[in-house]
């Protein structure tokens, strides 16, 4: 019942979102998020749930997307006629076929071998896409137009907002389907094979077949995401199936948290937001993204969701308030330290004489401004280091089960 309520709330939220974020820019960001969520969730069917680290998941996203654009072109040419609302399904089915073919030889093993095959196949298809011009359109890619074909209850999807509702509906269906998959025998055995492929064989399951099923499902949903991309942007290029896109989806899933169903959704939302906001303010946003990623792997191996979920025990023990003050005491110098580093990076990179950062103005080549920033960085770093013991102590206290407390 509780779970059912969550899905209802989720549906209401995605229907209402454009009411609060109605500008053209926000709707376009919402569309990106919907696509990213489906893509990241499909990726986690491999890595988080199936233990298969893929460096080439964009292949299924891209192939699905290209097929979807060709379907749009077919509708435009009058070769066949169906609603644009079904385009993502075309992408999904093509992604499924591609995954079935490639998975038939790549799912023998998980681990490093699988990772390397996914990388090789990814590079192979990305490189081939530049050669096979009639399907992939070479460097320029292939573009279509989503407004042809029969209208859907009067909607022709000329506006981004209409596309949002299309994308959101598909996102909801795909998310629900992927969640339900985790609750099926095949989905649960994917976890079992991830944990211990050998033992899975001794309870009657072929580890390879279990992996293949997850792989094909992941290809299907990645293809749906690609189809949504095709509808939203009406163009696909080599970029959409190359290593950069594959890397991006890994980033989203990992930063969000692999161990939780909702993790990749969090990652997709946060990274889409961070990307569009950061890229607005600085040209160095990719550098910050890289730093953020490496720090996440080092310090938050279970991602943002994992970090939040760590607080379940203190929450249940009713001791979450013990953490509030220590968090603030650590967060303030932490934020100052990070900002002072960012300021130095930006100042080193700027070509202007006057460098303005958060309202403060610096002479970008003056030793004074460097001195000030270095001093702030050092001071905040020391404060940060000093604040850590009390945070650790508070954490231990908040998680401690007092004797006699135990049921």
């Amino acid at each position, binding site marked *: 019942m509780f779970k059912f309520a969550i899905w209802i709330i989720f549906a209401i939220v995605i229907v209402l979102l454009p009411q609060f974020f109605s500008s053209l820019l926000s709707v376009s960001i919402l569309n990106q998020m919907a696509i990213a969520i489906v893509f990241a969730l499909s990726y986690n069917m491999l890595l988080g749930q199936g233990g298969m680290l893929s460096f080439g998941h964009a292949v299924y996203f891209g192939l699905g997307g290209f097929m979807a654009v060709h379907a749009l072109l077919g509708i435009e040419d009058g070769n066949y006629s169906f609603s644009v609302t079904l385009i993502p399904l075309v992408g999904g089915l093509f992604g499924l076929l591609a995954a079935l073919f490639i998975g038939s030889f790549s799912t023998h093993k998980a681990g490093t071998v699988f990772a390397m095959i996914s990388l090789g196949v990814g590079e192979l298809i990305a490189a081939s896409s530049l050669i096979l011009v009639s399907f992939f359109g070479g460097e320029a890619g292939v573009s279509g137009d989503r407004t042809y074909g029969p209208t859907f209850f009067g909607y022709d999807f000329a506006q981004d907002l209409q596309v949002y509702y299309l994308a959101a509906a598909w996102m909801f269906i795909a998310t629900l389907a992927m969640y339900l998959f985790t609750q*099926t*025998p095949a989905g649960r055995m994917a976890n079992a094979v991830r944990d211990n492929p050998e033992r899975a*064989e001794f*309870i*009657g*399951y072929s580890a390879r077949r279990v992996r293949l099923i997850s792989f094909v499902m992941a290809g299907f949903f990645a293809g749906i995401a690609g189809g949504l991309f095709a509808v939203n942007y009406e163009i696909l290029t080599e970029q959409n199936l190359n290593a950069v896109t594959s890397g991006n989806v890994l980033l989203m899933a990992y930063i969000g948290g692999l161990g939780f169903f909702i993790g990749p959704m969090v990652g997709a939302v946060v990274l889409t937001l961070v990307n569009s906001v950061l890229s607005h303010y600085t040209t160095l946003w990719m550098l910050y993204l890289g730093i953020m990623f490496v720090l996440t792997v080092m310090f938050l191996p279970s991602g943002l969701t994992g970090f939040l979920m760590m607080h379940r025990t203190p929450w249940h023990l009713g001791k979450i308030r013990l953490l509030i003050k220590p968090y603030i005491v650590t967060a303030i110098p932490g934020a100052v330290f990070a900002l002072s580093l960012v300021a130095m990076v930006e100042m080193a990179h700027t070509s202007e004489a006057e460098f303005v950062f958060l309202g403060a103005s610096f002479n970008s080549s003056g030793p004074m401004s460097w001195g000030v920033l270095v001093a702030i960085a050092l001071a905040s770093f020391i404060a940060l280091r000093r604040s850590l013991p009390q945070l650790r102590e508070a954490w231990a206290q908040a998680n401690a089960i007092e004797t006699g407390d135990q049921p």
Partner: protein
Amino acid sequence: MSLLQLQGLSKQFGDTKIIRDVNLEIQPGEKHAIIGPNGAGKSTLFHLISGRYHVSSGSILFKGSPIHNRSPFEITRLGLARSFQVTNIFPLLSVFENVRCALLWSMGYRYSFWHLLGKARALNTRTEELLEEIGLHARRNLPAGELAYAEQRALELGIAIASGAEMILLDEPVAGMSHTEATNAVALIRKVTAGKTLIMVEHDMNIVFDLADRISVLVYGEIIASDVPSKIRGNPRVQEAYLGEVVPGGSDA
């Protein structure tokens, strides 16, 4: 007819012969123990029967049909299940999920992605029963990797018997347990393997002589004796092989 037949079974790694020309027949319902000094090839023999290793020569017949060199999952589906000497469970899954996964194939779910586990009433009831049987019901929601050692062994056994296999291979089921834990484990093994065919490798001779109807002695990859416990105890070749070690069952004979 024998349930399991090993005929001229041999296994070598490189030039090293681990199993040499082993012939053995196990009757339905038999409780058979395989004993022998360390390095005799007991675990290798289990790996051959259960399909983890391929045989070098010879054949293995289960219910009259050959199973050697088949995949572990095919052999398991035929009704031959096993446990492992080193605990081999699904560490991140809950205890409940461990047992439920082990039940899936035998209850006909195969690779289904159109059944919801939560709605599979018979499956879940059976899982609860099994958890009750192996004494882990209170621990059902804990990740299996966080169980205590003896509990993990119980789960290991539970996973092995879940499929309802006719024949069960147990590789040192009580190794590393305290005396009390071992006593409980033996009672558990007796309970859950009632009416089934059992082959076990075990070092604790008290347990072997307690549980087994028949004992085979494996030394340097060869079966030097295979008989009822009372005859094994008096067999001079067995005593010779165990020279320097405790004569099997000698202390409480």
